[in-house]
C-alpha cells in the first residue's frame, strides 16, 4: 500500500524561452492524503500552479520540460504513463477546477451537456449521466436545477458558474480535486459559500483537496496543511495554524506581515473642515436598469473615503459618473461648490487636472505602444499650461522617483514591468496633473499581497506629502480597514451605510454590512473559525 494518495517527489520543471531557460519549479516535494486539504500558497510567478499542471499533464512540452522528479498517484508514477492512461485518470480520478469559470465553460453548449460530457467521455451511459447530472446540480446548490440543466453558461452568475464547474469536477467522484484559485474572481460572500461547499463535499466524499491560492484567508478557512512557495521553491510546510502563528522562513514572515487588516484604524478627520466634494442624490440608469440610485456622500480634503460592496453594487458606476465617463441621470456632484454633472466640456477640461483616476488593471490602463515617458508626459501634452516642454523630462524623472521607480525606466514600455511597477506608472501618470482627488477603482486588487502593501504605503505617503484625497473603491475589507478614514457600503446601486472606519468595522448597523464582514476571510485560522460560527449564526437567524 502506498504511503500517500498523491505524492510529488523532487519535481523540477523548466521552460525554455527565447530569453533563456526559466526554472519554474525546482525540487518540489509534497503529498496529499485522502480526506485532507492541502493548500499551496504563493504569489504570482512563484510556480504554485506548475506542479498541479504537471499532475494533470497540462504542461506544454516544449517549451516546458519536466527535468526530474516523480508524481506518484496510488503508488504509480504518472510521469511514466502514456497519454491514454493519463487521460483515463484525468477527470475520473483527478479533477480540476479553475479560476475563471466563464472562460472554462464552453459558451455554445448547455451546462447539462458539458457536465454529461465528462461522464460520457469516460464511458458512462447517456441516461445515467443525465440522472447523475441532475443530482450534482442539486447538490452544488443550483436553484431550479431541473430547468437550468438546459441553460447556457452566460445565464448564470459568477458564483453559480463556479458551482457548475465543481459539479463537473465531481461528476465521476474523483479521489482528488485540484482547485486553482477557485474563488479569486468572486465576491467575498460568494467566496465564503463556495469554500463552504467545497469543504462539505470533501467531508462527504473523502476526497483529497489540493487548493492553489495566494490568499491567506482562504488557507485559514479550509486548509489543513499548507505549502508556501516562493520563486519555484518550497520555503515552508506545516499545518495552517502553525505556519500562521510561527512562520520560520523570512519569506513567510514577510508574507504574513504584509497582510492588511491588522494595523490601527485611522481616526476620522476633525469636524468643521469644508468638504471638497459633495455628492447629492446622484443617480444613473442604463435603460430600465438602475445602476446607481440616490447616492450622497462627501469627501474632505486629505481624506480617504472607501467604497465597498459586491460586484454590481454600483461602486464603479459612481466613479465613472464622477469622472464623467458616464453621464448621470440626475443628482449633483459639487466639487468646491461647482456642479461636475452639469459642466460644459471646457469647464470639465480644467477640472480634469484636479480629479484623476487610477484603474484596476495597469496592464490594460497603460497604452502598450507608448513608452513610460510618453505615458507620463502625455499629461503635459494635454495640459500644456502645467509645464514647458523643455522641463518635461526632468519632471517625468522626478515623478518616477516619487513613486519608487528609476529615472532610467522612462524609455521602457509597460510590458517590461511587473504588475506592481505598472501600477506605480499609472499612479505617476495621475500625479503628473497635480490632482487634489484621486479615484482608485480597485487599484490594488490585481496585485499580490506584498506588492499591494507597497502600493498602499506609497498612496499613504503621497497623501501625507501632498494632501491628496482618495476615493478608494475596493472589495477587500481588511485593506479598507487599514487605509480608509471613512467607509461607504453599497448594495445594488444604493448606499446602505456610511461612517468612520472604526464604526463600520466594530459596530456595523445594517445586516448587509454585517454579512459582508462575516464573509471576509481572516488569515488567522482561529479568528476564521470564530467567524465561521458567526456566519452560521447569521444564516440560521435569517432562516
Amino acid at each position: 500500500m502506498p504511503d500517500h494518495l498523491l505524492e510529488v517527489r523532487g519535481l523540477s520543471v523548466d521552460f525554455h524561452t527565447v530569453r533563456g531557460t526559466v526554472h519554474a519549479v525546482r525540487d518540489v516535494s509534497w503529498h496529499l492524503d485522502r480526506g485532507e486539504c492541502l493548500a499551496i500558497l504563493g504569489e504570482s510567478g512563484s510556480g504554485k500552479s506548475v506542479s498541479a499542471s504537471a499532475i494533470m499533464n497540462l504542461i506544454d512540452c516544449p517549451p516546458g520540460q519536466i527535468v526530474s522528479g516523480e508524481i506518484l498517484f496510488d503508488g504509480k508514477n504518472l510521469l511514466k504513463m502514456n497519454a491514454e492512461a493519463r487521460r483515463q485518470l484525468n477527470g475520473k480520478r483527478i479533477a480540476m477546477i479553475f479560476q475563471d469559470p466563464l472562460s472554462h465553460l464552453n459558451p455554445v453548449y448547455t451546462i447539462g451537456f458539458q457536465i454529461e460530457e465528462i461522464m460520457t467521455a469516460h464511458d458512462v451511459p447517456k441516461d445515467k449521466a443525465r440522472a447523475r447530472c441532475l443530482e450534482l446540480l442539486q447538490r452544488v446548490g443550483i436553484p431550479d436545477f431541473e430547468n437550468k440543466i438546459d441553460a447556457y453558461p452566460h445565464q448564470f452568475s459568477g458564483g453559480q458558474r463556479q458551482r457548475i464547474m465543481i459539479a463537473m469536477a465531481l461528476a465521476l467522484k474523483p479521489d482528488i480535486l485540484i482547485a486553482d484559485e477557485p474563488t479569486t474572481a468572486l465576491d467575498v460572500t460568494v467566496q465564503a459559500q463556495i469554500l463552504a461547499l467545497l469543504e462539505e463535499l470533501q467531508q462527504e466524499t473523502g476526497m483529497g483537496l489540493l487548493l492553489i491560492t495566494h490568499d491567506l484567508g482562504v488557507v485559514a478557512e479550509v486548509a489543513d496543511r499548507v505549502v508556501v512557495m516562493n520563486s519555484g521553491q518550497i520555503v515552508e510546510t506545516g499545518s495552517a495554524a502553525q505556519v500562521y502563528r510561527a512562520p520560520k522562513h523570512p519569506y513567510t514572515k514577510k508574507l504574513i506581515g504584509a497582510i492588511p487588516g491588522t494595523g490601527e484604524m485611522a481616526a476620522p478627520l476633525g469636524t468643521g473642515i469644508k468638504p471638497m466634494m459633495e455628492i447629492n442624490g446622484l443617480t444613473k440608469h442604463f435603460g430600465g436598469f438602475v445602476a446607481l440610485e440616490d447616492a450622497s456622500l462627501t469627501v474632505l480634503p486629505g481624506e480617504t473615503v472607501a467604497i465597498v460592496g459586491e460586484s454590481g453594487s454600483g461602486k464603479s458606476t459612481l466613479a465613472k459618473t464622477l469622472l464623467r465617463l458616464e453621464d448621470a441621470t440626475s443628482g449633483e456632484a459639487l466639487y468646491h461648490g461647482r456642479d461636475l454633472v452639469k459642466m460644459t466640456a471646457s469647464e470639465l477640461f480644467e477640472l480634469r487636472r484636479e480629479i484623476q483616476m487610477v484603474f484596476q488593471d495597469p496592464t490594460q490602463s497603460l497604452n502598450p505602444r507608448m513608452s513610460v515617458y510618453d505615458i507620463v508626459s502625455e499629461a503635459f501634452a494635454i495640459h500644456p499650461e502645467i509645464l514647458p516642454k523643455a522641463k518635461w523630462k526632468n519632471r517625468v524623472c522626478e515623478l518616477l522617483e516619487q513613486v519608487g521607480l528609476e529615472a532610467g525606466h522612462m524609455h521602457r514600455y509597460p510590458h517590461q514591468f511587473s504588475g506592481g511597477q505598472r501600477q506605480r506608472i499609472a499612479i505617476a501618470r495621475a500625479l503628473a496633473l497635480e490632482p487634489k482627488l484621486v479615484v482608485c477603482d480597485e487599484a490594488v486588487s490585481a496585485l499580490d499581497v506584498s506588492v499591494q502593501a507597497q502600493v498602499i504605503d506609497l498612496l499613504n505617503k503621497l497623501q501625507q506629502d501632498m494632501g491628496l484625497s482618495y476615493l478608494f473603491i475596493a472589495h477587500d475589507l481588511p485593506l479598507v480597514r487599514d487605509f480608509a478614514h471613512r467607509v461607504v457600503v453599497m448594495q445594488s446601486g444604493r448606499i446602505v451605510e456610511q461612517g468612520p472606519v472604526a464604526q463600520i468595522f466594530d459596530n456595523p448597523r445594517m445586516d448587509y454590512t454585517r454579512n459582508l464582514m462575516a464573509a471576509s476571510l481572516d488569515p488567522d485560522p482561529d479568528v476564521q473559525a470564530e467567524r465561521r460560527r458567526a456566519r452560521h449564526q447569521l444564516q440560521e437567524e435569517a432562516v
Partner: protein
Amino acid sequence: MALSEQTFVADAPPAWVSILRMLWRDKFAFCAAVFLLVVILCALFGPTLLEDIATKQNLRGRNAAPFDFSLHWTMWLGGDALGRPLFARIIVAARNTMFIATGAVICSMAIGTTLGLIAGYSSRMASQIIMRLADVIMSFPSLLLAVIVLYMLAPSVGNLIVVLAITRIPVYLRTSRAEVLEVRERMFVQAAQVMGASTNRIVFRHILPVVFPTLVTIATLDFAFVMLAESSLSFLGIGIQPPEITWGLMVSQGRPYLTTAWWLSFWPGLAIILTTLSLNLLSNWMRTALDPVQRWRLETPRQKNA
C-alpha cells in the same frame, strides 16, 4: 538626482540607425526592401532610359524565346508578340503599374481609414450614414462601377486610380471601424479621457497606432488585387491603353499565347508576385518593429537553439 539623469537617461541612437539595424536582423525583410528599392528606381528612371528600346518593334524577334544569350541583352527574357524586348518593357511598365497601384491603395486606405475612424468613434448617426454608403459601394459590382465611371470620364491614369480606390474603400472602412469599436472600450482610452485628452488625440495617438498594423497588412494584400483589377479594366478597353503598358496589361496581352509562348505572361506575372511578396514581408517586419512588445525579436541577437 542630476547625476542619475545623466547616467541613466542616455538618448537612444537616431531613429534611422535603429530602423536599419532592425531591418538587417530580418534577412527576408531586408531582401524585400532591396527588391522594392530596385522596382522604385525602375519606375523612376526606366521610361527615360529604355522607352525607345521598349517600343521598337522587331518582327523577326516575334515571341523570341528567353535565355537566348546571342541576342541583345534586353531580349534575354524573350520578346513579345511584336518582337519588343520583354525585359525593357517590364522595366518601363514599372512606372505605370506602381503609380496606379500605389495611388489606388494609398487613396483607398487613407479615405477608408478616415471614414472608419469617424464611423467608429463619432456619433451613431454619422456611423450609420458612412456604413450604408459602404454597403452601397460593396453591393455594386466593382467592374460595373468602373465601366460607368470610366465611360463618363476619359480613361486615364488619374481616373483609373480614382475608380480602383473607390471600389476598395469599404475594405479599410469596415476593418478600421470594427477595430476602433473594440479599442475605444479599452482601459487606456478611458485613462486618456480622464486626463482630458481631446478626441483628436485619443483617435490619432491611442487608437490609430493599434489599428494601423492590421490596415497595412490588408493594404499589401490589396496591392496585388489592384494590379490585376487594373489589367482586367485594360482588357475591357477602359483602362490603360497601348502603347502605354502596365504589368497587368502585359499579362493579359500574353494570355492568347500561353500555350506557345509562356514567357509573355510569365515574366510580368513574376514581377507582380515578387513585388507583392516583398511588400508582404516588409509589412510583416513593420508590424513587429512597430510593436514594442514584439520588437525585442529584432533587437536581440538570435540564440542558437541547442
